[in-house]
C-alpha cells in the first residue's frame, strides 16, 4: 500500500476516535432503554471541561477524566428529566444539545484561541514497526489506544457479564425486568450516566488530542453523526468502531483529495461525509435495524411504587 493510503487510514482512525467514544457512550445509554439525543451538547461540555482542567492544572490526563465526568453530569440532567419526571426523551435530549452547546460557548468564550497542554502521538515500541498496521494503528496518541480497549470491554460487558445482561434486559423489556426484581430506574440511571461519561471523553478528545485549542462549536456536528452511527452499528461496539473509522476516513479523504490536486469542486467533496450518513441510515433501516434496536428504547416506565 502506498504512503497516501496509509496516511489516509491513519487519519481515519484519528478523526474517527472522538466519534467512536461518543457512539460507544450512546450505545450504552440506548441499551438501557434511554434515548439521549443530547450527544452533541455533552461532547461540547466534555471538550470544554477537559480543556479548562488541562489548562489550569497542566495535566491532560486529569483533563480527560474531568471531561468524562462533566459528560456524565450533563447526562444526569437527562436521566433526571426522563427517569425522575417522566419527561419526553426526545425533547429532553434535544434540549440537552442546545443547553450543552450554549453553556460551553458561553463559558468558553474567554478561552477561545488559547492553546493548552494535550496529548501528542506516542508510537508503541515494537507494534509501531509492524508493516501496514503499525503506521495506521500504533503511531497514535494514548487516547486512541484507550479507545481500542474501550471497544472490547464494552462488548464483553454487554455480552458476557451478569450486569451487562441486567442492563440489556432493562432496555429490552422493562416490565419483565422489574418483575424479575431488577431496579429498572437504577439501571437506566447507570446506563445514561456511564454513556454520558464515554460521550464526554469523545468531546475531551477533540480539545486535548485532535487539537490543543478551545473554540466555540468545536464538535461541529460530530455528536449527531454518533447518534446516526449507533443505528449503523446495530447497537454493537465492534461495528461502532468500523462506522466511526469509515466516517473519519471519508472526512479525511475529501481534504486529501484536494491536497493531492484533484480538480473536483471542493463543495462536492465536502458533502461526502453527510451523503454517506444518509446512505448508511437507509441501508441500516432496510436491513435488520428493527430487530437490533432495544425494544424498550425511548419508552418511559413508571417507578415501581
Amino acid at each position: 500500500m502506498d504512503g497516501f493510503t496509509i496516511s489516509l487510514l491513519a487519519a481515519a482512525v484519528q478523526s474517527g476516535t472522538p466519534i467512536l467514544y461518543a457512539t460507544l457512550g450512546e450505545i450504552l445509554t440506548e441499551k438501557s432503554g434511554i434515548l439521549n439525543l443530547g450527544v452533541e451538547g455533552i461532547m461540547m461540555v466534555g471538550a470544554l471541561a477537559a480543556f479548562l482542567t488541562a489548562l489550569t492544572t497542566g495535566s491532560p490526563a486529569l483533563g480527560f477524566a474531568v471531561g468524562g465526568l462533566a459528560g456524565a453530569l450533563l447526562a444526569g440532567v437527562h436521566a433526571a428529566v426522563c427517569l425522575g419526571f417522566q419527561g419526553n426523551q426526545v425533547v429532553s435530549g434535544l434540549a440537552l444539545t442546545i443547553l450543552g452547546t450554549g453553556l460551553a460557548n458561553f463559558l468558553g468564550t474567554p478561552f477561545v484561541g488559547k492553546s493548552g497542554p494535550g496529548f501528542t502521538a506516542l508510537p508503541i515500541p515494537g507494534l509501531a514497526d509492524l508493516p501496514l498496521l503499525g503506521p495506521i494503528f500504533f503511531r497514535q496518541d494514548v487516547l486512541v489506544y484507550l479507545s481500542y480497549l474501550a471497544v472490547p470491554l464494552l462488548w464483553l460487558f454487554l455480552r458476557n457479564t451478569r450486569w451487562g445482561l441486567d442492563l440489556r434486559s432493562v432496555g429490552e423489556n422493562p416490565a419483565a425486568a422489574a418483575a424479575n426484581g431488577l431496579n429498572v430506574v437504577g439501571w437506566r440511571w447507570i446506563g445514561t450516566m456511564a454513556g454520558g461519561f464515554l460521550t464526554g471523553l469523545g468531546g475531551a478528545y477533540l480539545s486535548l488530542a485532535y487539537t490543543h485549542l478551545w473554540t466555540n462549536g468545536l464538535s461541529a456536528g460530530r455528536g449527531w453523526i454518533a447518534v446516526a452511527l449507533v443505528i449503523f452499528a446495530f447497537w454493537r461496539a465492534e461495528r461502532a468502531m468500523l462506522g466511526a473509522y469509515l466516517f473519519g476516513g471519508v472526512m479525511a479523504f475529501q481534504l486529501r483529495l484536494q491536497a493531492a490536486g484533484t480538480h473536483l469542486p471542493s463543495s462536492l467533496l465536502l458533502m461526502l461525509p453527510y451523503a454517506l450518513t444518509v446512505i448508511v441510515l437507509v441501508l441500516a433501516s432496510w436491513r435488520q435495524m428493527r430487530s437490533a434496536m432495544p425494544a424498550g428504547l425511548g419508552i418511559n416506565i413508571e417507578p415501581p411504587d
Partner: protein
Amino acid sequence: MKKVLSVMATALLLVTFCGGMAAAKDFQVGFVYVSPIGDAGWSWAHDQGRKALDKMPGVKTSFVESVPEGQDAERVILNMARKGYRIIFATSYGYMDPMLKVAKKFPKTVFMHCSGFKTAKNMGNYFGRMYQARFLTGMVAGAMTKSNIIGYVAAFPIPEVIRGINAFALGVQSVNPKAQVRVVWTKTWYDPATEKEAAKSLLDVGADVLTQHQDSPATQEAAQEKGAYSIGYNSDMSKFAPKAHLVAAVWNWSPFYRYIVEQVEKGTWKAKAYWWGIDKGIVNISPMGPMVPQAVKDKVLAAKKDLISGKLKVFAGPVADQKGDTKIADGKVASDKELLGMTWFVKGVVGSTQ
C-alpha cells in the same frame, strides 16, 4: 433548570449591555466583532486597533464580540447608533447590509464597514492590501522549501482569499520558480479540527511549508508536530509554533482607525472606499524566525521597501492563470477592480477555485 436558564440569560444580557455602556459626552466609537477576541486572529487584530483609539484624548471605545452576521448584527449596530456613538466599525463582510439599513436611519453617525463594497452618505468601507504582505511571506516560503511543495489551508474561494493565494504564489515564484502552491479549502473560517486535518493532508502529500487563510493557529500546530515550517496570518503566531513559525502576514489597524477618528473629529471624513496598503502600515509582516537565513531576510525586506515605495507591484504582468492563458498582459498592472473580483488562480497553484 428554568432558573439556571434565566440566570444565564440575565448574565448574557448584562454582558451585552455593559459592553455598550458609556458616558454620553465622550467621543464614542463602537466596534462589532464576528468572533470572540481571543489571543490571536482577525477580531483580535481589530481589537488591537481599538485599544490604540482608547489612548487618544477624549475618545472612548466599546465593542461587542461574537455577533452573528445578519439580524443580530443589525440590533447591535442599531443599539450603538441609538446611544449616540459617533463612529461604528463593523468588522465582518456579512455586516454590510445590516449596517446600511441602520446607517439610513442615523444620518449623523459615521458608519464604517470592513471588507465590503457598499457606501452611503454616512457609510464608508475599508480594507487593507493584505496581498502585499502575502507576497512577502511567499518569498520566505519559496526560499525555505526543500520539497518545492507549499501547502495553503484556505477558508472560502472568494476573491479576498484567492487574491491572497495568488500573491503568495507570485512571491514564491519570484525566488523559486519550481515550487508549487497546493490549496485545500476547509469551507470554514474557524474550525481548528478541520483546519488541522487539512494541514495534515497537505503535509502528507509532501508539503514542507504551510500557510493559512484561517483564524485559528491549528495549521501552525500541525506543521510543528511534523517538523515542517509554517507561516502565520492575522497576527504573529510564533507562540503557537516557535520551531515552525517562519513569519506571518499581519494586520495593523491602529493607524487606520486613528486616521478615521481624526478625520471625523475635524469634519473632513469622506464616505468612500478606503483600501490602504503596506505603505501606510495597515498590513505588514511579523519579524522573521531565527531559522530564516540572513540573505533571505535581506531580500524580503528589500522587496518590502520596494512595495512601500511603489517600485514593486505584486500583480504586474505578465501573469498567466492555471491553464496558461494570459490574465495580466506584459507591462500592465491589475486594476483594483480586477483585484476585487479575482476568481482565478495564477499558474503554479494546484487546486480548484470552486
